[in-house]
């Protein structure tokens, strides 16, 4: 990664700008991706997407948000379209811009019945065989709430994996929530392993809470 890019990342972290970096929402044409994440007691998410083409995928998900501030919870079920807006394939690197949007329904503590909800987001990522970086912002809104989950992940691989070997990454994750879910930045250290069509992230936040994600492509 160029020095200017690193400076941009460091600056964003220093400014506390909410960012999110993680796996891609589109795997490959005619591929299905299933992802489950547990986020330190404040969020849990399950997603399944099918990609008719390499540049878009369709599917849905379930997101549970539990406020660390007032203990309230919001459960959102949604349908979503992911779109690969731009990809740069270079000899030794790849970078992507993904955007998405969808609609769904939300069940909110203290509100009777389900609320109409919508979501939108963007992800920028860059990777080589040694460095991984992604910025993601995921917004969920209804007439009753506005929750945005922003995550930054910066990863480093101690060795260059190949197609048939286990990939090992050390990842630092910073996450911020809006809408009274968590106050401040939630920082986690993760070990990322993947081989074949299986991917796992496991680690803990700096206050000792589990942060984990599993993903399958098929």
């Amino acid at each position, binding site marked *: 990664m160029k020095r200017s890019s690193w400076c941009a990342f460091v600056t964003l972290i220093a400014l506390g700008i909410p960012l999110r970096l993680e796996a891609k929402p589109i*795997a*490959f044409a005619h591929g299905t991706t299933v992802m489950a994440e547990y986020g330190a007691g404040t969020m849990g998410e399950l997603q399944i997407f099918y990609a008719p083409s*390499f540049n878009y995928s369709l599917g849905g998900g379930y997101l549970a948000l539990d406020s660390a501030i007032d203990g309230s919870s919001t459960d959102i079920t949604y349908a979503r379209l992911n779109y690969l807006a731009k990809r740069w394939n270079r000899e030794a690197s*790849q970078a992507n811009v993904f955007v998405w949007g969808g609609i769904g329904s939300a069940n909110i503590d203290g509100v009777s019945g389900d609320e109409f909800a919508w979501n939108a987001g963007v992800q920028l990522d860059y990777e080589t065989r040694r460095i991984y970086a992604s910025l993601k912002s995921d917004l969920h809104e209804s007439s009753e709430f506005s929750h945005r989950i922003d995550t930054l992940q910066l990863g480093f691989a101690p060795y260059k994996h*190949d*197609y048939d070997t286990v990939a090992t990454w050390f990842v630092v994750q910073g996450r911020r929530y809006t809408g009274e879910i968590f106050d401040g930045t939630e920082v986690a250290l993760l070990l990322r392993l993947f081989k*074949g069509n299986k991917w796992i992230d496991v680690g803990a936040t700096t206050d000792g809470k589990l942060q984990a994600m599993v993903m399958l492509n098929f």
Partner: protein
Amino acid sequence: MHRNAIATLSLLLMSLGATAETIEMKVNGLVCAFCAQGIEKSFRKNTVVTDVVVSLKDRLVAVEVSPGKDIPDQELHNLLTDAGYDVNTITRTQTPVADIRARLKKPTS
């Protein structure tokens, strides 16, 4: 004597003609094994493909096709683009994919 030589030559040519061809493609963006699964999946669906090997280190995708068969360059481009990658070069060799796989497994000095 002359007839035997012709028969031998014919058998030799038939044997060469039956040699499987391997298509080696240099691919840009090949940095993540998890994301590159689609390449192998796409090529294995092609009925003329008998073997596939992918190397991130060499930025290489090599496919072996049945004797006497081929995949047009445009179709190769389409398969790799659909998997999300860009093709740099395409070359055809007589090196079996098994030999390429063995070469890739050798530690580099």
